């Protein structure tokens, strides 16, 4: 296990370098620049050029790249061109709402989707199975923002049960935080519940057809014990894989939910920075996401070993 972790961490370095270079080039070669945004829509070309020079964006591209790499090597991810706040401060400020939302959504997803999929497999070809699959299709088809608006309309505006928007840190007020998280977590989790329920169903169905299940049944195990004690653990590997992929997708996919529920998370920060061409912030965020994906993949591989003792690296 130690060798696995060590190898993965070493492999991170070239990955980060490649990602950093690609992002740097993509940003600078695409149309639009922060000078234009800063100058505003009433600015003349000479004002834009003057701001560009002030920001050092008129320097040759290789020079800008070398300067940036050098600063990054020193751990300096720069400051936002617009707000002048350090990039790491911005990321740190906006990280908690996204992580809390993502973790809440994952918990909701796992608690709902895995049992739902397992029960659907167990009750294969019954009305329960069909109901779960129908809900799954609905979950895939309806966009998160539509679900979000519906939840707000029904549970916030009409029923006055929950707040419409905003974020409260669970470290400050856990109860208030929970109230603010219920709706966005549900909205965000819906598509993943649909996905993971289907994966769980397929995986458990496949395992339920195995010889060892027949043997366990012959030995007198109850159906419930068969499902939860024997089938589900053996079906866990593909489920864990999808959950792991889902975590990564979730973090990058929260932007719509953050916008609808006005959560000040990292998804919104990313979109805002891209639209404003705030180069240091975008670069810092992409690198951060890369580290997240590398970390999540490593955790998934570790989880495999725990879930399936036959797997060794």
């Amino acid at each position, binding site marked *: 296990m130690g060798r696995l972790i060590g190898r993965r961490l070493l492999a991170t370095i070239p990955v980060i370098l490649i990602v950093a270079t690609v992002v740097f080039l993509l940003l600078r070669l695409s149309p639009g620049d922060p000078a234009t945004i800063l100058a*505003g829509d009433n*600015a003349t070309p000479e004002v834009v050029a003057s701001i560009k020079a002030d920001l050092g964006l008129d320097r040759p591209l290789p020079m800008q790249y070398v300067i940036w790499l050098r600063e990054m090597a020193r751990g*300096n991810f720069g400051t936002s061109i617009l707000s002048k706040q350090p990039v790491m401060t911005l990321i740190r400020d906006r990280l908690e709402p996204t992580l809390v939302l993502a973790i809440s959504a994952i918990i909701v997803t796992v608690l709902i989707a895995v049992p739902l999929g397992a029960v659907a497999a167990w009750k294969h070809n019954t009305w329960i199975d069909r109901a779960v699959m129908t809900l799954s299709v609905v979950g895939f088809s309806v966009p998160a923002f539509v679900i979000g608006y519906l939840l707000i309309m029904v549970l916030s505006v009409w029923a006055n049960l929950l*707040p419409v928007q905003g*974020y409260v*840190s669970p470290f400050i007020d856990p109860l208030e935080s929970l109230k603010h998280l219920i709706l966005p977590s549900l909205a965000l989790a819906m598509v993943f519940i649909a996905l993971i329920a289907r994966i769980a169903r397929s995986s458990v169905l496949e395992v339920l057809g195995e010889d060892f299940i027949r043997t366990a049944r012959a030995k007198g195990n109850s159906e419930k014990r068969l499902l939860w004690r024997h089938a589900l653990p053996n079906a866990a590997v593909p489920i864990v894989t999808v959950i792991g992929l889902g975590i990564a997708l979730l973090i990058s996919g929260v932007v719509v939910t953050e*916008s609808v529920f006005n959560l000040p998370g990292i998804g919104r920060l990313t979109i805002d920075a891209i*639209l404003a061409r705030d180069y240091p912030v975008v670069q810092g965020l992409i690198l951060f996401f890369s580290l997240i994906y590398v970390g999540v993949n490593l955790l998934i591989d570790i989880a495999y070993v725990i879930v399936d003792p036959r797997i060794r690296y």
Partner: protein
Amino acid sequence: MTLIRPTTISRRSALKLSAGALLAFSTRAHAQGKKVVKFAPHAALRVLDPITTPAYITRNHGYLVYDSLFSIDSDYRPQPQMVREWSLSPDKLTYTFVLRDKLAFHDGAPVTAEDCIASIARWAKRDVVGLRLAAATDSMSAVDAKTFKIALKEPFGPILDAFAKPSSVPLFVMPKRIADTPPAKALTEVVGSGPFKFIASEFRPGVSWAYERNENYVPRDEPPNGMAGGKVVHIDRVESIWFPDKQTAINALLKGEIDAIENINADLRPQLSGNKDILLRREFGPNASTIRFNWSQPPFNNQKVRQAVQQIITQRDYMDATVGDPNSYQICPALFGCGTPLEFDTGAVDHGKPDVARAKALLKEGGYNGEKIVIITPGDVASFQALAPLTQQALRSIGMPSEIESIEWSTFLTRRNSQAPVTEGGWNLAHAVFDRMDLVSPLGNPNFDARGPKGYTGFVNDPETEVLKTEYQHATDAAAQKAIAMKMQQRAYDQVFYIPLGVYFDDEAFRSNVKHAAESQIMVFWGMEKT
């Protein structure tokens, strides 16, 4: 650049840091019994320096925390704000300004003449009217702590209008130590002498920001009038919360989670009108939509072709299609704004009905060869979305084929500054939307920047207009200025600098327990009360 080391903090410390940093995310009032107004602004605040950027959100932020030497009233006339009295020498070359008593910055330092001079100098390096004033100025000097003189090389008639310039970039007064910063370097320290103080510790760029009442602010005695008059504050705190989704802001207002929304457009108004807990008020300051031509490229480098398009565009068609409710728009031929001192319809071409025959005749006269017109438009900006299809339809009616290229805002701004041919990424026609405050000054109105390739996008090239602007600047009485402005407007219509498409008013929305301030060109919080 601030050096930041990679963090190796403990988990406990990280949690503490997060909790501390995120304390400001709580939407509860920070002190019991304080009157707090929570409102949803039209955009997210990121840049704090109102000189570096002309962004309206930064301008609006500036009006809360800074004060100005002069401000415009509801008739767009300059009124003294920080200035108690002023005089002009008989040769019209020396202005003397005396500041009001007890003016002080938020850090406690008194506002002095030196602060004013430094602020004027910084503003003048960035603002188009300021640049003209700076070129006409021989010297600025402090006579005493509260008095300063401006000695001009040549007359500059609209100097008070320049000091009262309401929109990007307004002249806000800052401490000299801050105003001495080159305008290219954006300020991050916000110290003004305005009715509110900016709470820097609660600034979350793009998320939320807050202000508290400046207890030491001394308002003028007059009642509030536009952006001028007495700025008396009755609330303790303003919390601005940016909502990327306007529907969420509306839902939050309905539920009482916020108290006001800066602007609601006609599409969303029905959700709030008729609700007994919500008050809607038409904005005092409208927006003006326009068509801009690219003068640097054919076919719109040809006056006849521009005039042809002018013949078929009517403000009513555009306003009916984009706004709908006649109570929310105004047909306005005045290029310096209706309801302003320079309102006149000199040279106006819009007769209410398209003249297709005349347009086609002009196209023939101009030798138009059927080139496809490339219309660029920002697909992600709501106020632009309906304009391009309408223009395309109008062009089609006179046999001008066109193609709409919908691009995102930053790309749109960059491309609109391009003077390259269409085949090399250029453009022929675009739209622009302005706050009326940007249009009131003949010297500052971007639509009258006629310097060609060096000028505002569209690259209008008309040396005669630049001469008229200089004459305007030298004119020292209102009648002479008006006569020159009329000539400028006539010229703009004749040469078709651009085509005005009408002005429209959004609504401000308030909870019924918020008594809103007197009418002003932007939403202000002085004069506002909350029960």
